[in-house]
């Protein structure tokens, strides 16, 4: 069997995005970066508690893929999930409220950073179990097929999660049943505090190919490339041509979680600086926007400043927002069932 893996290079501008699409992708990437800068600061200053994981550096992956989706398409996210949430259309206010455990958060404060979800935009939620959402995503795709709905589900997970057996069980079924699911492996080079090459044998894309799933290795720092390929695969999924597997080569700028500060034992500061300075998805795309005459530097600066201001306001709002009432604590343990549906003969 010949390898179907395709290595993608820079997208051709001819089939590129419209001006609006391009600006929107840039905006969304900056919104993610700005969100994370604020979340990081909230955590470091002790205002946000628990565990949180920064998406900074991987923006082109979430934005490139989610900009190829509609609100009825679903995604499942990871412990490093703020980026997916923003990219899928979530608002700052509800997100910051959730991170601070406030009533107005997307999950009424009950989920927090690692369980943030936004059903209105098809985000089925972050997951604190590595690889925990692979079954969920595949199930969502099975539902679409069974019910004749044309939405596509994207399952985000990291390179570390390829070590979970669940992946192989669900890829097998997805391939057998031709489900509209895209397995998007964000390979940031590190499985928690360990180099991926030390924990993953062989090729990652070859794992999917073993099941006959078409697999692609993509530069995850190139939002245009990610977006162009995603659009094609989403369309093919809708035509019953799924599933697909993407390995997106990317990098996380922060530690595994906020607080993972001493990390020189597993990766060097030099390597970090190289990715930040030479391969940053936002810097690259900004240069492209200017080069293409889509936006001027001053316009982009103004846009960045506006996003920074939005984040600041949302943080202030969330800090002042109310916590949930104590009566919330045992609400939502069980979902209600309409007794009418339980009557025989109905």
């Amino acid at each position: 069997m010949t390898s179907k893996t395709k290595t993608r290079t820079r997208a051709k501008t001819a089939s590129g995005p419209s001006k609006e699409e391009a600006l929107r992708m840039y905006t969304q990437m900056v919104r993610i970066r700005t969100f994370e800068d604020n979340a990081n600061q909230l955590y470091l200053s002790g205002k946000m508690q628990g565990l949180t994981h920064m998406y900074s550096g991987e923006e082109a992956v979430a934005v490139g893929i989610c900009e190829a989706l509609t609100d009825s398409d679903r995604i499942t996210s990871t412990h490093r999930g703020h980026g997916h949430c923003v990219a899928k259309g979530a608002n700052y206010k509800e997100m910051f409220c959730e991170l601070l455990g406030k009533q107005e958060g997307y999950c009424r404060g009950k989920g927090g950073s690692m369980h943030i979800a936004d059903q209105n935009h098809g985000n089925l939620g972050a997951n604190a179990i590595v690889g925990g959402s692979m079954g969920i995503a595949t199930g969502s795709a099975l539902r679409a097929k069974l019910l004749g709905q044309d939405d596509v589900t994207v399952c985000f997970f990291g390179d570390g999660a390829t070590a979970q057996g669940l992946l192989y069980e669900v890829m097998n079924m997805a391939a057998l049943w031709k489900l509209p699911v895209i397995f998007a492996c964000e390979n940031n080079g590190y499985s928690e505090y360990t180099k991926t090459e030390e924990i993953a044998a062989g090729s990652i894309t070859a794992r999917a190919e073993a099941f006959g799933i078409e697999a692609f290795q993509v530069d995850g720092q190139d939002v245009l490339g990610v977006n162009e390929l995603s659009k094609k695969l989403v369309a093919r999924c809708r035509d019953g041509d799924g599933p697909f597997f993407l390995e997106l080569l990317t990098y996380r700028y922060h530690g595994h979680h906020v607080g993972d500060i001493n990390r020189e034992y597993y990766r060097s500061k030099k390597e970090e600086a190289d990715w930040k300075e030479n391969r940053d998805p936002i810097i690259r795309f900004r240069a492209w926007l200017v080069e293409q005459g889509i936006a001027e530097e001053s316009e982009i600066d103004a846009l960045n400043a506006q996003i920074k201001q939005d984040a600041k306001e949302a943080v202030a709002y969330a800090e002042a927002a109310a916590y949930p009432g104590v009566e919330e604590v045992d609400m939502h343990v069980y979902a209600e069932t309409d007794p009418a549906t339980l009557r025989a003969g109905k």
Partner: protein
Amino acid sequence: MPLDVIMPALGMAQDKGVLLAWHKSPGDPVAEGDPLFEVETDKATMEVEAQGSGFLTDVTASAGDEIPVGQTVARISETAEDTGTTSGTAQDSPSDEETPTSDDHQASPAMPEGEQVIMPALGMAQDAGQIVAWRKAPGDAVTASDILFEVETDKSVVEVEAGHDGFVAALLAEKGEDAPVGHVIAIITREKPESPFQQSLSAAGKSPQPAEATKSAEPAPANKPAPASRKPAATPKAPGAAREGRILASPKARRLALERGLDLARLAENGYPQPYHVKDLDTLAQLPDAKTPALSGAAPSRYLSADVAAHGFDQFAAWAAEEAGLTNPGALLAGFAGVSLSHTGITVALETFGKTRLFEVRGRRLGSLVEVDPESGPAPDLKLRDLRFGHLNSLQTGPEEIPVLSVLAKGENLTLTLECAAEHLDASAAIALLSDFAGRLEQPLRHLL
């Protein structure tokens, strides 16, 4: 706006860090990303970068300090001048203490400081009481003995006193709401409150219970319901209730009762509230033999007791002997007892040293007491046992054919008991009788007024 420089959260199991060295001095210009200071954590060190540009000011921590995560250690200001405003404490940097419970953004009014009135424990199996009515409104003046509210419990309604003098500053439950026992439901302040208010329990539940930490474990005595005492005998239960179904008792109390040949049902018959525990067995053991009382065990009974100082009566008896020639203090007692029961036409049987004498009490005056022949006189309405010169210091013998008052000496005091069947006197009549009798013994001159 100045930017706080904060001790960062450094690791999963870390709640503080040691500041090893500053890389900038107060007043130095700093640019975003400049290393500001070095921190030791997990046996490694790291540099903390400036989060913004400006001048380092208000440095509150020095090299070597161990600093909790989230604490402000300096500021980055627009000028090199110290603003002198940073407190260096968790004020701007909520750490664990602040986040969990504070509820700053709740719209509910601030809780006034004052005496707390709590929902009292009214019955053994009661963990909440329904507020039937508030008798005072927010802002009203109250004295400690004023009735503040009515509570429904065990199918009866109890009035509860305010317990404190002052003003009603806050009512924290609405009429009709169920308040858990021990829950603060009102606040009484010494000064007239500026903005007294009332809110529902559900609203109050959202704001922290005022001064949780200082709340005493047991309801303050002053808050106890006025008529209801937890002494079993003062609030005897109807026998029906006591005998309904099985007796509630702990396994250990049952086992020990069995071993000691005691019948727990008799506690119920005598009006002691259930469930029974080991400590109730002593009471049970002291109950008189069930067969002695003339009335059947099924009859409901009342048992009340009171203590009064003895000297008032002793002085009076001495005076009466000298001035009025009434040399029998027992007869004086009989007169007091008769008048306490009714103002006219009562016959009292006086038992002293095993002998019974009969007196007709025709009025309040000392002379209106007439001794009659026990054989031919009218049937007595009341029996009085004068046991002041014996060794007993308490007794409980169960109801007899007529109500029985006993007088026992107990140190400087007299202990008065009243026992009767429920059908003889209703609860309030029994309370009135004993209270009246006690009052007369304490201040005998009152008897003559």
